[in-house]
């Protein structure tokens, strides 16, 4: 009985100490985060004002405002994420100015170093910055990144390849061992439209010949997005796919072509019908 009382007492003490520790940790974390956030806000504000001055103001004033923020590589790295935000808001002509600006301030060197980071987030961010800022010299290092890395790293690697190499890269991507998310597909198509708007059929045909389920949806969307009517057969073939997602994608995309033949419509209707019949019977069997 005495032992039980002592145990209860110890249990209570452990509980009190744990709660107090938790409070202390929480208070310190909140305090540190507050300082970090205010610094980042300050940086964002300065960068936005500074960039505006840099593009609009007299040449002699350029970059004077930045010197305080480039004291270390880490400061430059933090600056890069702000730059990326600003880049998203700029027109193409101004965006080019940001690219050359990143060279001038030495940001490209920092990004190159970060590509070797063991942290997946830093690595993925460095790849993203490389393709967003057009740092073509980093392509070799990006290509060398193992395909066994974190899924976000591979995702950014593939987007970077498309961004730099254009249609040529589709052959590499067609061999992807991992499925490509809808989001990644949108990014790839966007990069093709932005940086390589002229379709290079030679490379695309080669990529289509590689029968990889992981990239089928991507190719369906590319055909649709670039209105490549001569490759519509590829989408029609997917109507018979055993994979529900691929079939859904083909079914969604095919009706949106302006030049659909009667046969195409017939195929879509048949696929839709067989799909709903299968779906209904599956639901029924589950209910039973």
């Amino acid at each position, binding site marked *: *009985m005495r032992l*039980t009382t002592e145990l*209860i*007492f110890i*249990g*209570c003490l452990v*509980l*009190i100490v*744990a*709660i*107090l520790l*938790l409070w202390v940790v929480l208070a310190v974390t909140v305090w540190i985060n507050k300082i970090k956030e205010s610094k980042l806000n300050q940086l964002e504000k300065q960068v936005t004002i500074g960039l505006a001055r840099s593009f609009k103001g007299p040449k002699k004033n350029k970059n004077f405002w930045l010197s305080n923020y480039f004291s270390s590589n880490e400061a430059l790295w933090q600056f890069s*994420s702000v730059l990326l935000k600003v880049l*998203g*808001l700029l027109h193409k002509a101004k965006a080019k100015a940001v690219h050359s600006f990143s060279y001038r301030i030495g940001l490209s060197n920092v990004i190159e170093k970060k590509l070797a980071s063991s942290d997946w*987030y830093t690595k*993925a*961010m460095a790849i*993203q910055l490389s393709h967003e800022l057009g740092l073509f010299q980093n392509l070799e290092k990006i290509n060398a990144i193992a395909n066994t890395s974190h*899924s*976000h790293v591979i995702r*950014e690697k593939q987007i970077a390849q498309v961004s730099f190499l254009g249609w040529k890269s589709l052959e590499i991507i067609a061999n992807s061992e*991992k*499925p*490509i*998310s*809808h*989001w990644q*597909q*949108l*990014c790839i*198509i*966007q990069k093709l439209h932005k940086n390589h708007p002229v379709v290079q059929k030679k490379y695309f045909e080669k990529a289509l010949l590689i029968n990889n389920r992981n990239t089928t949806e991507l190719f369906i*969307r590319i055909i*649709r*997005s670039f209105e490549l009517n001569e490759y519509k057969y590829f989408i029609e073939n997917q109507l018979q796919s055993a994979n529900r997602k691929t079939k859904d994608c083909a079914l969604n995309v095919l009706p949106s072509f302006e030049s659909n033949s009667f046969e195409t419509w017939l195929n879509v209707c048949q696929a839709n019908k067989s799909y709903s019949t299968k779906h209904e019977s599956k*639901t029924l069997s*589950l209910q039973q």
Partner: protein
Amino acid sequence: MSSLTHHFLDSFFLGYGLALFFSYALLAVLGKIAIKNHYKKSTLVNKQAIKAGKDLPSVTLIAPAYNEGKTIITNVYSLLSIQYANYKLTIINDGSEDDSLYQLIKEFDLEMTALTPGATEMSFGRINNIYKSTNPKYFNLTVIDKVNGGRADALNAGIAYATSDLILCTDADCVIEQDALLKMVRPYLEAVDQEIIACGGGIGIANDSIIENGTLKELKTPKKLITKIQVVEYMRAFLIGRMGWSQVNGLMLVSGAFGMYPRKRVLEVGGFNKDTVGEDLELCIHLRKNMEERKLPYKVVYIPDTLCWTEAPSNLKSYISQRDRWARGLLETLKIHKDLMFNSKYGAMGKFIFPYWVIFELGAPFVELLGVLYIFYYSISDAINWPLYCILLCSTLK
């Protein structure tokens, strides 16, 4: 009371308290990891690109309204202005007795359309009419007028008539952030190996805040103590509970006030269950169960950002009534799905998550009440170590 009973009860309360405390502590740690991961992943996704994307999954926002005449027009304008390329808005007039429907018809140039039967997978009350706007500005607005049947019934009607890939269920009186859909769709766009069957977003309390034209202009701390307490409670529930469970794919609840689901999965389970007041919890459990039965990989996710603002009860009476409804909903839902309890057929959900809900979410109020009674019994029998009791009480005060 015999010493053996004392010994048993002491150990039970201590063991239960410690287990609850450490499970919350663990959830806090998991929640922290989940939030960190979420922000890392979301910074890698360019929201502007989603905004401009042409090939995005279609979303229908379904908002039931019952006697919301005072605010319905402002709220619909606010919902119509949400940023998303492939978006439709369906307002369900759930048998309102006020002039909500008349106001909507007048303001948005609504016209009756042919009444077609909706999806047959689910049941809902009789539909009176379906209205669409003749004004091209509001091409994405549909109003369904039906007989009153409650929230679950109204949502089912909306789902049955929706044609989109995803549905977002909310309430007509909720204020939704303009970029909410862009954020909510992200997990669906990024999913590769696991299908996202439900996605929830943070809900904030907007009492005493400034809301203009259906958008939150300035967030203010609520004036009343009861509402202030709920602010902390919501933060604990969303940032610790939901995010923690989301990290280990153990989330069983996506709030009815703001939840996104793939329409085809909701149809498979027959929509919201009208037999319980906890229809959001029931749907989420049912969706998970459905995926487990089909042996399909799935995930339920939560977005930690506050994407939806709502008014919390500001007096004790409405607070008690809300909590009573939630507690009944929990009890009813757990009863409906009692076959999940320690059922290894349903994987981690049957073995751990469901039992956790039964033991801690459902059991805690009962154990706490018994604990209070037990302390009362101890105090009258003068068996309490008061200094220790005070220290313990102070340290656990929120």
